[in-house]
């Protein structure tokens, strides 16, 4: 599913997009420890977090994530937004909590291949 379809179906506020809204979302990861995201997120994941620091953009780029969704209505910091626009990383905002948002994504069929 494309990121923009998720955005419209889950009512996400698009903060930065610049061409990456057509990214295919192939899974998801939820974590607020960026070192954990670096270690465990997979390419194509949509990342759910409450971190607003500019490092989220670098981590999203590094891991080739499909996009970042900030929860609880949290707004990205100004330099985060600038970086995201520059790096072509989509940052979206949801008013839901991490738990609720992950549930909605699952209902949309966004699932990770189970690790065997």
């Amino acid at each position, binding site marked *: 599913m494309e990121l923009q379809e998720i955005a419209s179906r889950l009512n996400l506020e698009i903060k930065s997009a610049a061409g990456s809204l057509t990214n295919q979302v192939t899974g998801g990861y939820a974590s*607020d*420890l*960026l*070192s954990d*995201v*670096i270690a465990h997120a997979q390419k194509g994941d949509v990342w759910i977090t409450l*971190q*607003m*620091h*500019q*490092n989220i953009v*670098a*981590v999203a780029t590094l891991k080739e994530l499909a996009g970042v969704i900030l929860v609880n209505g949290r707004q990205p*910091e100004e*330099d985060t937004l600038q970086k995201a626009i520059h790096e072509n990383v989509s940052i979206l905002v949801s008013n839901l909590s991490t738990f609720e948002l992950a549930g909605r994504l699952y209902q949309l069929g966004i699932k990770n291949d189970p690790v065997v």
Partner: protein
Amino acid sequence: MTRLFKADLHIHTCLSPCAQLEMTPRAIVRQAKLKGLDIIGISDHNSAENVVVTKKIGEKEGLVVIGGMEVTSREEVHILAFFADDEQLLKFQDIVYDNLTTGTNCTEVFGEQVVVNEIDEIIGFNQRLLIDATGLSINELVDKIHSFEGIAVASHIDREGFGIIGQLGFIPPDSGLDGFEISSKITLEEAKDRFHGRNSFITGSDAHNLLDIGKSFTQFLLELPTLKEIELALKGQGGRFLVDK
């Protein structure tokens, strides 16, 4: 003439909710001297209310005490802030208090937050939720610390919990931090290797009880045991530097 000074800059007093009640300023100074330390730093969580009293005791006992605080950023990263001037430190504390949540401490869960005087008498309890994070980002904190002529050191960067790398994946290149603290779990050599040749490393005990004081310390080559000189050492300037143990 420079000489070696042993410094443990990361010590919590009984004001920190997680520290033992035995961590009174008098006991800390006594233990630090026993351990042969020349300089200690007082770094309670989001508060500095036991700093002035510890400095007074240190002055009498011949131990250099540097006033500071371990402040928690919005990203839940611990930052050590040190100030040469108490007034500046207290101004910084006002800003930290303004940016702490309005919650009150739950003593059953987190412990008492005790403010004491020079003879270990309890003169008050801090009711704020000091264990909580401030609403200030790392960048905002570092800017504020610098604006009060303080220095900012990222705490225990090799630790996942509340360490800058654990929380943020890597050290933001424009962080403005003056130094980086490593815990006693890794050596300076390992740190240089892991954190790509940064050289402004200090190590401290992060003591929450008396026995831990001086368990880990930094050796500075300085002319005088002052924060100004420590700042020079962190920059490797003026012939002041850190000495590997």
